């Protein structure tokens, strides 16, 4: 396996995640898209670890997963909050603040 394949996959996933963020229209799926992007980045890190033969990157991934978990907790709480107020989670309807 050439290492570049992993990076290509990572970039593809990252881009798809970005695309999903743009296309999806509910907050929760948009958040999921971000999780995809984070995972893509994780993949790149793991590949880099393998590439360089060092472990540090794996530890970083460990931290990133922790962070992702924490973010998920907070993010979902915020989405719940929004749902309680609006009774939906449509991204477009979160637009009180603009201009």
């Amino acid at each position, binding site marked *: 396996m050439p290492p570049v394949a992993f990076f290509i996959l990572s970039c593809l996933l990252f881009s798809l995640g*970005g695309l999903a*963020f*743009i296309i999806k*229209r509910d907050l929760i799926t*948009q958040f999921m898209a971000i999780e995809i992007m984070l995972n893509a980045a994780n993949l790149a890190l793991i590949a880099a670890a393998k590439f360089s033969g060092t472990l540090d990157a794996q530890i970083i991934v460990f931290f990133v997963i922790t962070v992702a978990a924490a973010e998920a907790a907070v993010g979902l709480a915020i989405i719940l909050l929004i749902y309680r107020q609006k009774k939906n989670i449509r*991204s*477009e309807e*979160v*637009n*009180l*603040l*603009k*201009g």
Partner: protein
Amino acid sequence: MSAYFWLIPFFPGLSTLILVIFGRWLPKKYVSFQAPFAVFLSFLFGLSSFLSLPSTAAHHGEEFLSKTLFAWIYAGSFQVDFTLWFDPLTAIMVLVVTGVGFIIHVYSIGYMADDRSYTRYFSLLNLFTFAMLILVMAKNLVLMFVGWEGVGLCSYLLIGFWFEKHAAANAGKKAFIVNRIGDAAFILGIFFIILNLKTASFPEINQAIAEASLSPGLATLIALLLFVGATGKSAQIPLYVWLPDAMEGPTPVSALIHAATMVTAGVYMVTRLNHLFTFAPLASEVVALIGALTAVYAGTIALTQNDIKRVLAYSTISQIGYMFLGCGVGAYAAGMFHLYTHAFFKSLLFLAAGSVMHALSGELDMRKMGGLKKYLPLTYPTFLIGAITIAGVPFFSGFFSKDAILTQCFARGNYFLWALGLLGAIITAFYMFRLIFLTFHGEERFSQEVRHHLHESPPIMTGPLVVLAFFSVVSGYVGLPVVFGKNLNWFERFLEPVIKSHEEHHLTLNTEWMLIVASVAVALTGIAIAYWLYLKSPALPHQLVARFPGVYRLLVNKYYVDEIYNAAFVQPLVKGSEAIYYNFDLPVIDGAVNGSGRLMNFGGKLLSLLQSGQVRDYALVFLLGVAIILGLVVF
């Protein structure tokens, strides 16, 4: 006393100060005393200084009375002191100014007696005297310019004395602005002199010219610039237009400022700088030509005017033209001589006219006068003397002075100018007597009401008339022409130290006689025509008007010069300024400023559209940024 000659201008100056500051609380009687008295003091000092002057040219080259009061403006090469001096030329002017001035002050006490701004009037009159004295006593051009502008200011204020009348306010403004045009040129002339001669002081200028440190071309330019200033002040073509309007001022003012003194400042200036003008023959010729043309031109306008003061005003313009003619041909003494005699007879005429107005409750239109001879027993003869003098009837002062100019003209070969002078003389004689006849003779054309109030003026006014009439008659005898004997022209000899000597132009006695006869004839002809037209057959003028309507209209409308100036200069300036203001200043310059602000605002508006409130749009912008930044790195 003559050591304190420099105090001369400060008497009226101090008086002005007192009147301006405390005038409100001063009783009228006191004012009536103080103002003329100050001028009288100046006169006394002037007289004593005059008497102490070296009486002949023997002292030629010696310093005259001179006093530097303080260093005035010192900046780099521009170094001017506040210096007054007293040389023969100044002496004559000082005596005329204070002498005539005093008489007119006295006259004013009567004339202005009922005016509510009595104090203001006298303070201005004093101020004028002060400024005029500075003008004539200044030892350098810059200080002279102070007086020059000062008298202009007083002229402005006094013309607009009755500022509630639009005409008066307008006339004052016009006088000042027109004068300013001349002054602008005058300033440039001064600059040229200082720049090239490193001095503004008259003796030094003369010396520098004697050393020929000025190229003739430059000298001509300077002389012409200064002369433009003179045309403004002395109401010559093309800047004479303010003087007729200036008659809106009180009549004594017209007499003092617009006849006797201020308007002749130009002549004084040219004479003062006669070295320069002599050095610039071309400029002198221009001076002479303008003088002669003005003499005739203004006379023609005077022919048809019906306003008594305007006739006199045009007559003044015309007479000053004569003075310039004299100066222009090099006969500075003659020019000054005419200035000196003119001061008496013209102020006499004005004061007498004032007396007439006084009698007729302010009426100015000659067509509403007539037959006043019997009502004004003192005014009439004095007026008549004035008219005779100005017309050039022999043995009156005007005759001597005018004849001196014409003779000199002839003697220096300027036959054309001489002819113009003669033409002017005939016109002068005509319109003066037209004035006399229309005013004092013939049928009475004034209304009943006016007749009711008709009265001779009080002695405080007629007194000055008599004095001036006396001087009008005798003042010519200080400068008798050669035909009456050699060395009788004391006036000319007195001025010799001041005036650059040049080769004598001797005419044979016969020629001189012939010239005298010619001018006498001319004067008498003019009078005769006036007599014929206005007393013998009063219908004739109307027929003449009917025959030459175009000419008449041209003359009555003063050649339309005011209108032309208005259309050529004033309106374009105002309209142009408005056009620039509304089409350039507001929309372009101001518009650029406001426009850039609006542009910013518009940019903000566009950018704030991006801020739609949609997370997706924010992400798009985010991605756009990423794309661009990565692109910068990758490519």
